């Protein structure tokens, strides 16, 4: 029996372990490694490799698996819709872009929040998103059906989008809808600025709680970048880049059929009757997963994967013994909680202040919002109790 580290070390040192290298393997592997390196050089530096690394990290933890599953569903529901009719335009570069957005038959771009998502659209209502971890989600809004593939587990999720709000514009974070309905005139011209080595012309459009800043190349009139800022939901902001319009996107990209050999995971994205209680249950679930019983640092669904992955790396989650069934239930809890947020109207003026607050802290407000038609706010405290509070008594 060893007493301390040094004695343990002595035991190890006395072991006779054959680690002699086989020169033939060494030489053969060198040849193969260089061949792989040269092959990789032939291809553009894709983000696939990075995504594969991310995927492995993400899927290591039960909590991150839950977060990933919830993020997929949420990505669908706060996703983008099809394009509408064209409108009258002015002759400015900005107006040309508005027209392009309105009329595009297909469009692809990259959405850079804290999570990078590649997005492709095709009329009349097909959408494909590729998220870190190679999670591909295809949705057909005309049928209200979708499919997500989970490559690490060779599984797929088919979704029936029942009980979705009929008007996509009601979904606060429906980024593409905001793009699609950009007004034909900008509120403010920002002049030129150099961004990523290109001189771009900026236009700002403010609508209710959303500020869109559109950056256009004045030489080519290409749409280069759109920054979307949600005034009432800091942390939800996204930057969209790499726009391409009317490129050929094969129908096979939008098929609702899973790859061969994948097995089905049933899921129904039911957002009917989502209430404040769903958010509370989500907060309760999260605080039960963290070792120190703290609430999530953010409620931004797009940050779920990243935040949970970083927390996992820091060892901040406790041991989660979970079954697939429980994981699905947890993902749904998470998803319904966040859907409650996404359905809150801008005038609810919701705020989240739960970062670093531990479950049970009855004196600290962690979330508040004003229900429609109400003069007072609903405030959720650290013990997950709820009180009605006048606006003047809210935390500053």
């Amino acid at each position: 029996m060893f007493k301390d580290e040094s004695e343990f070390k002595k035991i190890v040192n006395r072991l006779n372990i054959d680690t002699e290298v086989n020169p033939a393997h060494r030489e053969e592997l060198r040849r193969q490694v260089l061949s792989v390196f040269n092959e990789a050089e032939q291809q553009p530096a894709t983000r696939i490799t990075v995504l594969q690394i991310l995927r492995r990290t993400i899927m290591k933890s039960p909590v991150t698996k839950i977060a990933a599953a919830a993020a997929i569903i949420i990505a669908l529901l706060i996703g983008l819709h099809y394009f509408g009719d064209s409108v009258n335009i002015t002759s400015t570069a900005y107006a040309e872009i508005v027209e392009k957005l309105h009329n595009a038959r297909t469009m692809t771009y990259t959405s850079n929040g804290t999570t990078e998502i590649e997005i492709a659209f095709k009329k009349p209502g097909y959408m494909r998103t590729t998220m870190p971890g190679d999670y591909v989600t295809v949705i057909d809004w005309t049928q209200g059906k979708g499919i997500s593939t989970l490559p690490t587990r060779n599984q797929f999720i088919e979704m029936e989008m029942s009980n979705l709000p009929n008007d996509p514009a009601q979904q606060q974070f429906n980024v593409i809808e905001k793009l699609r309905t950009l007004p034909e005139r900008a509120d403010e011209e920002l002049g030129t600025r150099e961004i990523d080595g290109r001189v771009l012309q900026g236009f700002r459009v403010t609508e209710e709680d959303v500020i869109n800043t559109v950056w256009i190349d004045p030489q080519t009139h290409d749409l280069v970048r759109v920054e979307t800022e949600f005034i009432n939901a800091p942390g939800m902001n996204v930057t969209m880049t790499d726009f391409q319009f009317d490129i050929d996107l094969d129908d096979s990209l939008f098929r609702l059929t899973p790859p061969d050999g994948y097995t089905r995971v049933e899921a129904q994205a039911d957002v009917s009757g989502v209430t404040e209680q769903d958010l509370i249950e989500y907060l309760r679930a999260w605080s039960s997963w963290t070792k120190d019983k703290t609430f999530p640092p953010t409620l931004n669904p797009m940050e779920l994967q990243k935040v949970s992955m970083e927390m996992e790396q820091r060892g901040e989650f406790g041991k989660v013994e979970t079954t697939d069934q429980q994981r699905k239930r947890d993902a749904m809890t998470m998803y319904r909680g966040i859907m409650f947020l996404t359905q809150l109207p801008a005038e609810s003026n919701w705020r989240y202040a739960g970062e670093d607050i531990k479950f049970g802290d009855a004196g600290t407000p962690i979330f508040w919002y004003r229900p429609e038609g109400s003069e007072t706010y609903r405030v959720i405290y650290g013990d997950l109790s709820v009180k009605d509070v006048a606006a003047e008594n809210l935390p500053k």
Partner: protein
Amino acid sequence: MVGAMAKFVERKEDDLVLKARTQAEALSRLYEMYYERIFRFCVHRLFNKEIAEDVTSTVFFEVARSIRLFKGRTVQDFQNWLYAIAANQANAYIRKNSRRKELLKEAADLMTAADGSTDESSEQDWPRLYEAILKLKPQHQTIVTLRFFENLKYEQLAQILNVKEATVRVTLHRILNELRNHLQSVLER
């Protein structure tokens, strides 16, 4: 003089890391420098030379595919990156292959005191100790291998595992307690 020479060599090696992103020759030299170390780590982690060769291959294929995206600039960064990949690949191998019992047997068969030491107790302890190590979480097994077989410093372990140095110290302390408790319970049976 010796110090200046060491610094010069270090700088040359750091250049190698930067060059290896685009130059096969530089990657080849890094491969030469680190093949044995990674192979040895894999043997110490998996206790089977053939399996260790397979995992070593996987590690260097990953390096060849990803080095263009590698953000590190120094040999130390590169070494930490290599060990992180190797630790992940070894853990993945163990997860996918329920060969722990076989590994244990092979490991126990391999282990004899190298120096013919008269301290037979440590030799006799090893199979039990290794059995206890196999009961640890994969990351904890990795810590044991890196610390005791590869003789890495706490600082390096922290960088490889992407945690704070203090976390490594505390974790290792817990691991040793866990191993001791396991051995104690075995002896009391």
